[in-house]
């Protein structure tokens, strides 16, 4: 698959993400952030299992017979925290745009370091000047958007 097609999928993923943030935040409004995060994860578990059921024949899966626990299998820990935090902040004064903007700052900085050092075995890719310029444009835009 071409790089542009993969990029387009990522763009669509981002759009889905803000719809998700919106829905999750409305759930947090009624139930409280941590409680909403649990409901989100239970619904997500079912959705993921259904996706798994649909797709495992075509993509195959690793046998669980020789399953060995690895620390990275507790990955949901971070997501659980992120969903609760976002559920909380969207319902404060900073709203969706403020939440997304702050998340952008954290992710840009993290993405930079991650590509440079290859955190968690995700493979090293040295950021070039274009990556840097791109990050600066994005931060400018996010700043304008938060105050709009």
């Amino acid at each position, binding site marked *: 698959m071409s790089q542009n097609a993969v990029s387009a999928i990522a763009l669509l*993923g981002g759009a889905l993400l803000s719809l998700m943030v919106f829905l*999750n935040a409305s759930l947090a409004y009624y139930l409280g952030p941590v409680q909403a995060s649990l409901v989100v994860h239970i619904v997500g578990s079912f959705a993921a*299992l259904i996706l*798994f059921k649909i797709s495992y024949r075509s993509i195959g899966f690793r046998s669980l017979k020789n399953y060995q626990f690895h620390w990275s299998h*507790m990955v949901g820990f971070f997501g659980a925290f992120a969903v609760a935090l976002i559920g909380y902040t969207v319902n404060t004064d900073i709203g*969706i745009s403020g939440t997304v903007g702050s998340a952008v700052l954290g992710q840009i900085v993290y993405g930079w370091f991650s590509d440079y050092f290859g955190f968690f075995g995700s493979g090293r890719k040295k950021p070039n000047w*274009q990556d840097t310029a791109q990050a600066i444009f994005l931060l400018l835009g996010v700043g304008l*958007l938060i105050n*709009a």
Partner: protein
Amino acid sequence: MGVNRSILGKLGSESNPIQASVLNHLSGTIFLAVFIAVFFDFQFINEFNKVPFLSFWGGAIGAVFIVITSFVIPRIGVLKTSIFFIGGQIVCGSLIDILMEKISNIPQAALGIAFILLGLCLKLIVEKLSSRKEA
């Protein structure tokens, strides 16, 4: 979120994205259930009837999103993935904010989006310019 994403990318390339997604949600569910049992209680279940039906679908979108994450990161890297996710998120998020009347200054928001899109397209523009020079 960044940490979550790169571990998922790794898991996705080792096994497959959907298994990584199941693992992500199940471990998150277990962690949260324990957390709520220790620090809160399960009274919130009584509030379910007040919640709009649509609000429950966020988790399902999350599952699809994690499949997308695990597919994309090994192919274009964490930084590029983050940038495209942010682009889509910002544009769709501002549309929601405008609909919810949380954004009052639409021209400024549009300028902000323009900067973001410019940043996103920067590489494509540079590539086109340099290939034209060679030709």
